């Protein structure tokens, strides 16, 4: 068994990112540069366990139908369709939606995907706050103030169906930037300083500890 001593120098949350400074002192480590680089590589390669949007679909219907007793029928609409009642293009809405970040604490390990819905009936500007999340799943949107689109008139209803998945094939890395520095002190000796920037939906310290599982330090 090998022991590692970790100091948390700084741990801050910002609007767009989380910043963490860690000081690491591994025992009996001949090559510090190798150890630091392995941590950096495993953080970039292996941390992918976050929920991301994989599919978006749009549906529209008329708000006033001729037969009021009839059910409203929603028709599917493709991404390149322009709607006069909404100011942005649908492809621009897709770009806005993909800026959303989620937090997820699954009850079961089997639960891997959920669906969320955005209904727009009124005339106003819609943001991430208006998205409906099913009560059964433990999903949370982190950036609720993100602007999505403006609706100008009430003639039409727009419904957006969003699929959120933990798909490993879909590439998304929550860690924005990582760097390591080797330093030397007379009292402690050599040590590593990790500089970690991540997205707001994960805790960088937890990600660091998770990355240590994947390390293969037999060569040291």
């Amino acid at each position, binding site marked *: 068994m090998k022991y590692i001593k970790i100091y948390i120098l700084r741990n801050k949350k910002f609007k767009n990112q989380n910043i963490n400074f860690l000081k690491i002192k591994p025992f009996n480590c001949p090559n510090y540069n190798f150890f630091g*680089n392995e941590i950096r590589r495993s953080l970039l390669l292996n941390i992918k366990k976050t929920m991301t949007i994989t599919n978006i679909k749009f549906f529209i219907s008329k708000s006033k139908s001729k037969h009021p007793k009839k059910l409203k029928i929603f028709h*599917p609409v493709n991404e390149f*369709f322009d709607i006069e009642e909404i100011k942005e293009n649908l492809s621009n809405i897709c*770009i806005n939606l993909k800026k959303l970040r989620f937090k997820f604490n699954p009850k079961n390990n089997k639960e891997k995907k959920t669906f969320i819905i955005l209904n727009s009936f009124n005339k106003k500007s819609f943001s991430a706050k208006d998205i409906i999340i099913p009560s059964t799943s433990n999903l949370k949107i982190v950036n609720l103030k993100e602007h999505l689109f403006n609706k100008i008139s009430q003639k039409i209803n727009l419904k957006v169906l969003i699929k959120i998945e933990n798909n490993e094939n879909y590439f*998304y890395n929550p860690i924005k*930037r990582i*760097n390591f520095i080797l330093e030397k002190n007379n009292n402690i000796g050599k040590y590593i300083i990790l500089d970690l920037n991540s997205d707001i939906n994960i805790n960088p310290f937890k990600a660091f500890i998770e990355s240590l599982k994947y390390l293969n330090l037999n060569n040291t």
Partner: protein
Amino acid sequence: MINRLKTYSNLLNIQSKSFKNFLKIGIINELKKIQKIIHSNFEINFHINALKYKKPKLSSESCLIKNETYNIDIKIPMEIKYEGKIIFKKKYISFCKIPFMTEKGTFICNGNTRIIINQLIRSPGIYIKKKKNCLLATLIPKTGSWITIKRNKKKENFIKIDKINNSIPLFTFLNILGLSKKKITLSLNKNNYSKNFKISKKKKIEIPTINLTQLSKENNIKTIRNNLYNRFLNSDNYNLGDTGRFKINKKIYKTEFFTNKKILMPEDFLGIFNYMIKIKNINIKSNKIDDLKNKIVLSVGELMQNKFNNIIKDIYTKIIEKINKFEQKKKQEEKYNKEKKEEKIKINKTYFINSKNLTDNIKKFITTNPLSQLLNDLNPLSELTHKRKISTLGIGGIEKNKASTKIREIHNSHYGRICPIETSEGKNAGLVLSLAKDIRINKHGFIESPFYKVIKGNIKKNKGIFFISSENEKNIKIAPCDILKNFKLNKNYGVKNKNEFYYDSYKSINFISTSTDQFNSIGTGIIPFLEHNDANRVLMGATMQKQALILKNKEPSLIETGREILINRDSKSTIIAKESGTVIYSSSKKIIIQKKSKKSKFKNINLFKKYFKKKLKKNKKIKKHKHTIYLLNIDEKNNSNIYQTRTSIVKKNDWIKKGQIIAEGIGSLNGNLCLGKNILVGYLSWEGYNFEDAIIISERLRNEDILTSIHVKKCKSFLINHKEKKEEITKNIPDIKLKNVKNLNNNGIIKIGSKINGKEILIGIIKKRLINYEVELIYEILSEYERKNISVLSPKNLVGIVTNTKIHKIKNCYQIEIYITEKKKIQIGDKLSGRHGNKGVISKIIPIVDMPYLPDGTPIDIILNPLGIPSRMNVGQIYECLLNLSAINLKERYKIQPFDEYQYKNNSEILIYKKLNQSRKKTKKEWLFNPNNPGKTILFNGKNGKPFKQTISFGYSYILKLMHIAEEKIHAKTISNYSSIIKQPVKGKSKNGGQRFGEMEVWAIEGFGAAFLLQELLTIKSDDLHNKSQILKNLMNGLSMSKPNVPESFKLLILELQSLGLNINIFTKKKTLFTK
């Protein structure tokens, strides 16, 4: 600084101005030739002064959708008299339809956007040339035959018409034209030039024997005289043009004797002869052909007028033909029934003029002329540069194969008028040019460039801008703009005078140019730090900017030169406000602007009541509002298959000025031009993958959609509507699974919004047919036929969404179009480039972890080869790269004037170091600027975390994705078509053909001695008919390969030799005839 805004003009002014001139003046001038036609008993009158233009029926956008032409109708009142009686009353008839120019300078013809390029040709006038033994003067008119006057060393003078071999002596020629001997001698005696004409009594005139019969068949003086009169003095056959007469006037006459006649006068010949004698005495330099003072620009208007002139000549001859026909018919009728009374003569209005034929004739000009081309609308820049092209090719121009290198070179007079850098590469180099920035074209067709006046070393900007042509540049000394800032007295400066460059004192300068980049075109003007690059690489940079694809999330460049707004204004997809007002409504489809108006009395109150059913008090003032509606719809149809959208920039209750941009297309973002992306690059070699200009990119660019573009693919099919209904579009297709048909509508065409992956049915079509006539009866009874599936499938590798379907009906035929949009991510083999001509192909896409990273941990996105810089000499890319780096760290944007080096020495280098140092202090990243090796730092290897040995330069540069995509070009063959005669595989990707195994490739295999491989390639794999089919059977049965036979192409050779009459045959080893 100079107030540059003064010189900026509308960049499309050349096109629109000349077309307007054609409509207002050109048409009427041509129509005057057939104003009154009197032939035998007929008299036809066209009242040209009452000419009318009718508005186009369809708008330009709906013409694009319906595949029709955008044109205006010309209407003229016509009157026909027969023997003094009026048959046809004065009435408006539609003369013809002319294609009309849109606001952005394009034409729409059969649903395609087209453009007519300006032509640069030799101007009409006199050209004098010196040869070893003689002096030549050629007279070039606008229309008509050329004349050359020749003067020997023996002082004999001859005249030559067109390309007739024998020449006529000048003296007899002048006699024939009507000048008497006395007049000639008198005019020459005055100046004591009688010795030049050898008419003294002692020496007789030596007239060489000539065949005057070549001019006319009968050897008669009258006929010769008539012939010459028709050639030069008749205005129908000969026309000097405005510029031709202007040039002759200037050379021969004093200002008192200037004339406006478009034909040649006998005095003109005397004048030219007089001028030629002068030249020999004073030794004036002969004219240069390549000078711009001898070349004129023909724009759209003039080219159209030339075509219109030919059409009107045809009309005149056709009308006279028809009159003759009519009279003959009438005479015959009178012979048979003499006794009958004269009936009233009735003539249709279409009898003499058929407007449909005329419109087809004009349409032909726009579709077939080599100068009219399909508009290159890949991005806003390529649109504009295509409109400002100048070509020396075309009708009446230079032929492509005969053009020597002397014609293609840059001339001194090009300064400020034609760009010396931007031309097309390859065959057309130097023949297809582009206009410089601020030029103007005057009424004669010469190009003019703007200058400020300088008097005794003081620059007078208050006096305005002077436009100077190459002709006027003779006695003027012009200084470049570079000296403006450090203008010191008592110093010599570089000056241009009479196409020569030398140093002269400041006092002698007359004019100074308005801006530093006056000489170059708009495409090259966008490149920042242009002055640090080699001209060859700037040319490549300018041509590659035209090929840039517009990417998904657009991003403007951080360094600009200040011309980007002008380019967007003239793009096809932007909308400009026609009137100022407030915005009432703006959405993704419509913008409404209300004009501010005063309160006024409503004039007709009763009318108002009728419409609005309201009661009004007397004298109540009503507000009248004027709405203007702008529709943002844009058609999918595009010459370069690019996805297009249009979005509004304005909000509700905004105040808008006239001429402001309201909505913009895909190529611009808030008025900034967007062609590429700002990406972090580093200059190092990485495991040999970037050898020879190859490029390595990181996975991030592919996964985060940074370099993805959107394309539209059009699939087309025709359906002929027979009476028997042999073909039909339906959903019910035999022998196909339900899964494949689920996306089809009930009418058989695919639904909008359905996804497509690989080969899928787009239109379901069935063909009915009968096999045997015996079975026909059964089918007739059951009313069923055998049905065959011939439905249209989507192309092989297409993955996308159906966005639109269209159905047109053209007579008996239905045309169905299906539009599919697809996103294309970046791949290995795609072409990337910078703005400085640094291009390359992607060789490897590697994960982010392996990429080298900066000292703060951010990985690099693109790795370029440093060896690409020293030999190519495009240092501007490094300047751009480093200034962009400080721009991102400081969050600033820069506007850099081209040639800013003139302010003080090493200006751009100092600016960049200053900015980098500033960003180091602000961000507290010490590695951004190191004074020992500025612009470089130590980077770290991504694989092992160790630093590289040497410092590496890095930064952000603006990178473009070009239209040469690997996916569209890659191709492999399995089963293909074979050509009909020689039975070899065809070539080309569209025919699913093979790759040619040429002469050099055969040599390579011969070199290795692989004889059997070569035999297999030339026989079984290409045109050995029997063994080609046999080999599959042999492989399946486990037999050995059969021996190859004589190939089909060899048999064809022998057949061809036999048809020449040679007895040639093929024999086997046993000396028997080869029959197979």
